[in-house]
């Protein structure tokens, strides 16, 4: 079951630069996407989401872009800070009942000073 894929297991960027985390999905029934950040020994923390009727959503330093035709979304963090170092998961959700979130495998982001 690879409905949500994050093909880059890790990403390293310097403080102040842009971090771009990518996510691809195969399930056309997803109509909502979410990004979560996870530190070791903690639960996923909700970051930002986007509905499939939009192509961009921005919240402070975080922007999510959605390309429905390519079934691709990305999370941009600008400027990146060392505290952003964590594992980032994208997740898809379907508008059917109390739907589950389907998570990708995560990308470990390391922001160096």
């Amino acid at each position, binding site marked *: 079951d690879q409905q949500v894929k994050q093909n880059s297991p890790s990403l390293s960027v310097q403080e102040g630069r842009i971090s771009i985390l990518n996510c691809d999905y195969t399930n056309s029934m997803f109509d909502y996407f979410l990004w979560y950040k996870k530190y070791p020994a903690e*639960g996923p923390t909700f970051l930002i989401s986007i509905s499939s009727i939009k192509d961009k959503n921005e919240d402070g330093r975080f922007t999510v872009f959605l390309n429905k035709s390519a079934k691709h979304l990305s999370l941009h963090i600008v400027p990146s800070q060392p505290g952003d170092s964590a594992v980032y998961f994208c997740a898809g959700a379907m508008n059917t009942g109390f739907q589950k979130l389907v998570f990708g495998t995560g990308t470990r982001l390391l922001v160096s000073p």
Partner: protein
Amino acid sequence: EPEVTQTPSHQVTQMGQEVILRCVPISNHLYFYWYRQILGQKVEFLVSFYNNEISEKSEIFDDQFSVERPDGSNFTLKIRSTKLEDSAMYFCASSALKTGREQYFGPGTRLTVT
């Protein structure tokens, strides 16, 4: 800021034993979920719960698993007879929205089955 809490943080049990993992969702949330993450793997959905009944469950959530909301605040996951492969982090989540958009996760319980 309201948060989801889970107890215990770590549970060690022997194969075949029953375990109960406990969660206190955010107080005004009505939709509750359990997920698990086996070491090195993705976070996987187990079950969703609303209005005192299961609304959806995954194929992982077999007869060995059950969920309950015994009172107005707690939400529990019971594994009747644990197997080695049940070792994982178990996350509880809750949301205020029917379609489970923004789900808020607890810190997790690490279950180790020996």
